[in-house]
């Protein structure tokens, strides 16, 4: 039924080793299997099995899409399209021959690429040693490609891998990088403040990469802003939704807080005070969402509100720890990631976010916590926060 016939029928997905020690190993592996299953299920029926410290995926159809999707699942270190054959010599040679021919098609034609055959043999009863099998296969497969390949055991740029197991032998050539990181759901839960800009979606992605699930909290200044900015936020969350099982977007009304700050606080402090209120609302949401931390897209010194002093003022209003995965990132580095994960094009849509409402002409660069607290004495902080939390609109995406 596939429109085209790629040769491999299996995918070998390898996972990182760092966390494979100790009692948590099983939990991690189970979470990973579950996440891989959930990720590929919408594409096709895929049998996912754990075997000898790696995952085997057998897609019924849409092989390439399944491969690409699986490569995005956190915890996967690398993937290889593979064939499986019975542990019979002729079958191994034939599968290697086909895998090699496919590999050669992807190689540059202007030089001979260093290459080797690498056997791993956990089936010790197999009648040949690893080295013998390597030679046997090499002698029978390289012939037609000698002008494109040269055997180089130490400096090989490409290889055909042969894993000999008692029941099955897996033959593969290509090795694709996986997303790395840890299986989502194994580390904890976080609330990510999402602005609609370029940075915060990347911060959310990085948080998921390290094994956290993420709920999104955004602020909306209706009627100063229209429904378009909500649509943009929802699109951002949707584009990140593939990285975790379910995504919850909470949108808190923010206009009342902004007008109160505009009317009662020094203009230069507006942005800092907005953000302090966001931290308070975020801390409340973290409690109800059972999240351990807040995550923001802040980067040191990137804008006026992100000086060290202002970050200090902002964080002081939070009652839970604030993680800033992008703290040392240049904008350009963040943009590279945003493009890769697919949020960039949405982030640059010309929809204002709530921070632009009543934006001060000259924001304070070196805010002081005491000043913030003094300004907030003029506000009904608790009441404003309560009403914002009560007004939260939830979207499950």
């Amino acid at each position, binding site marked *: *039924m*596939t*429109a*085209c*016939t*790629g040769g491999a029928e299996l995918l070998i997905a390898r996972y990182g080793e760092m966390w494979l020690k100790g009692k948590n190993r099983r939990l991690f592996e189970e979470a990973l299997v579950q996440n891989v299953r959930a990720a590929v299920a*919408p*594409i096709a029926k895929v049998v996912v099995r754990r075997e000898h410290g790696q995952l085997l995926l057998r897609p019924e*159809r*849409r*092989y*390439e*899409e399944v491969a*690409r999707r699986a490569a995005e699942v956190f915890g996967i270190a690398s993937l290889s399209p593979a064939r499986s054959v019975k542990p019979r010599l002729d079958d191994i040679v034939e599968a290697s021959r086909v895998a090699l021919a496919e590999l050669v*098609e992807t190689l540059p*034609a202007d030089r001979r690429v260093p290459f080797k055959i690498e056997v791993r043999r956990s089936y010790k009863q197999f009648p040949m040693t690893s080295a013998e099998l390597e030679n046997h296969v090499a002698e029978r497969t390289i012939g037609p490609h000698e002008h494109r390949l040269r055997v180089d055991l130490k400096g090989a740029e490409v290889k055909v891998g042969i894993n000999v197991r008692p029941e099955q032998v897996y033959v593969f050539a290509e090795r694709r990088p996986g997303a790395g990181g840890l299986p989502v759901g194994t580390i904890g839960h976080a609330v990510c403040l999402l602005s609609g800009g370029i940075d915060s979606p990347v911060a959310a992605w990085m948080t998921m990469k390290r094994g956290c699930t993420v709920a999104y909290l955004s602020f909306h200044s209706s009627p100063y802003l*229209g*429904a*378009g900015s*909500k*649509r943009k936020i*929802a*699109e951002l969350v*949707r*584009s990140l939704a593939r990285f975790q099982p379910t995504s919850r977007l909470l949108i808190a009304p923010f206009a009342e807080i902004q007008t109160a700050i505009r009317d009662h606080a020094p203009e230069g402090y507006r942005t800092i005070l907005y953000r302090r209120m966001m931290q308070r609302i975020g801390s409340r949401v973290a409690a109800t969402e059972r999240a351990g931390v807040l995550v923001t897209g802040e980067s040191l010194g990137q804008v006026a509100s992100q000086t060290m002093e202002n970050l200090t003022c902002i964080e002081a209003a939070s009652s839970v720890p604030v993680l800033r995965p992008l703290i040392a990132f240049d904008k350009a580095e963040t943009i590279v990631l945003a493009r890769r994960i*697919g949020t960039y*094009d*949405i982030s640059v849509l010309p929809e204002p976010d709530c921070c632009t409402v009543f934006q001060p002409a000259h924001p304070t660069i070196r805010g002081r916590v005491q000043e913030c607290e003094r300004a907030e004495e003029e506000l009904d902080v608790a009441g404003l926060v309560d009403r914002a939390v009560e007004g939260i609109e939830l979207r499950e995406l």
Partner: protein
Amino acid sequence: MGTVLYLDHAATTPLAPEVHAAMEPYFAGGFGNPSSRHPLGVQAAEALDEARRRTARAVGGRPRDVVFTSGGTEANNLAVLGFARARRRRGAHVVLGPTEHASVAEAGHALAAEGFEVETARLDAGGALDLDDFARRLRPDTVLVAQMLVSNELGTIYPVARLARLVRRASPEAALHVDAVQAAGKLDLSLPELDADSIAVSGHKIRGPKGAGALVLKPGTRPPSPLVFGGGQEGGLRSGTENVAALVGLGAALELASDRAPETAAAMEAARTRLRERLARVGGVRPLEPGDRLAPSILAVRVPGAPAEVWQHHLEVRGVMTSVGSACQANKGGVSPAFAAAGLSEDDARRVLRLSLAADSGPLVDAAADAFEEVAAELAAEVG
């Protein structure tokens, strides 16, 4: 005329009830312009977002790489003209598949008039795509290759993924465009699997509405130059206020088609096999099955005696709706390449009937075959 035995699904299909229901809200209350900033506009934009996601998912692409068009023809035009023009500085050589739909072939003529060197690949003696010949035509300055996935005339499936490997190696500057209008919903349509730069799909071939189609681009490919200029909709690639209801319908139809593709293919295959068996037993009727693989949706036959048109009208009196093979190329009056490769003379080519199936055609097959037998007897009596 009693019961209609509609066997012309390659021409168009009836709207699926689910698709109709999905479109309904956007005819009346949800009339907003997706570019408007008020809630009615945003609601329409969100409907388009969802349609874009569904379209992308159905073909294995990304939502932001979906360019909605007025149908398959515009999608093909945009790819052929747009890709070639956008890459003009890198070369001016174009290779088109041997049996392309007019919306590709005629766009190729337009490119030739602009100074592009446009070649047409060929089929081998068995009616399959001649990949060796194709490979010989590919050059470093080739900027566009267009190859359909399923022949609208005979149902042949062409090996696009294998062609893609040849194109990538020989013509790194080339965009590979795939007209998948007849493939959607019958084959598993997957942009990454095909490794194409773009594929064109159409709504009304898969129980969606007419006037809605899409060109879905490969992530990161240099986009085509637009053909329609204006307000910058569709990422600037296709200006003009979007036909929201129709595009919502397209998204819904593609999703249904894609989800059901395996079952649809199996049901079509069964119906096609039965129809082929029955028709092959009608004296003088010969199934045409060129190439290595055939789509389950199309059965073309050469009919004996009278020209296909006469058969068509005799069949339609009995409620059987078919299509006369596009025997003559509009420009030259010769035999179409697909027919020539199937071994058909000019005279044969006038006697090709195309029957095209849907997932639910099975129960109609025997009645249609009965009609064929009646027509065969009637026409034979006339000749005699």
